[in-house]
């Protein structure tokens, strides 16, 4: 079950996180891909948009839900050299959030800029 890590080739990969952290498993399993994927040493970009911006919300309390609060794991992304983290401005705004509400530092981009960046990627993985 060893995964072969191809050497040499570096692709621009973007993980697109669009769903709320709880209610479905997409956010958690997307984060697992990002962490495992770090071993491949690609040019990784993470973008949070739509309800996906809630994934980065500070002070998540999941006690009532009976599921694990995995949000502290986002703080570990830096250790995995995942440093290009973006949040779509409009998604934040319509949900009444600012970057002060987020658990990690991010770069805020408008829809247009996110769209341009997507166009510039080699791989888009949508979650």
């Amino acid at each position, binding site marked *: 079950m060893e*995964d072969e890590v191809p050497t040499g080739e570096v692709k621009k990969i973007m993980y697109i996180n669009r769903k709320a952290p709880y209610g479905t498993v*997409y956010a958690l399993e997307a984060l697992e891909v990002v962490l495992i*994927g770090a*071993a491949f040493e690609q040019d990784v970009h993470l973008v949070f948009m739509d309800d996906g911006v809630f994934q980065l919300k500070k002070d998540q309390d999941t006690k009532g839900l009976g599921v694990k609060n995995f949000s502290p794991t986002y703080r570990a992304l830096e250790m995995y050299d995942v440093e290009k983290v973006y949040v779509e401005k409009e998604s934040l705004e319509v949900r009444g959030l600012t970057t002060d509400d987020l658990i990690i530092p991010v770069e805020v981009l408008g829809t247009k800029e996110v769209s341009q960046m997507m166009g510039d990627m080699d791989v888009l993985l*949508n979650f």
Partner: protein
Amino acid sequence: MKFGIMVSEGPYTHQAADTAYNFAMAALEKGHEIYRIFFYHDGVNNGTRLTTPPQDDRNIVKRWSELAEKHEIDLVICVAAAQRRGIADADESKRNGKDADNIAPGFRISGLGQLLEASIQADRTMVFGD
């Protein structure tokens, strides 16, 4: 062109598995290559041989197995997602102390790295989900 494919939804509930299959068939027909199909999230449920749809409906799992056999396509089920959802091959079943396995022919269970590796190797990565 060399395609990598990720299927993120299970069979029957969502159309993603059907669309991914139709895409793969069309791509092959046009002479393209499918480097790998990676099943993630509930997509791992595409790989249980215990699926028994009504006779007048398509058999999505069998269709994948036949595709794998005919075109030698690498069908990979994510191990972490599979463990959560009870999809196991003989090795996985034994390793986790279970009394049965259910993986369909043509599928294999492996790690998430297989998705990344496919994305790097393929010219295009297609995600079929909701």
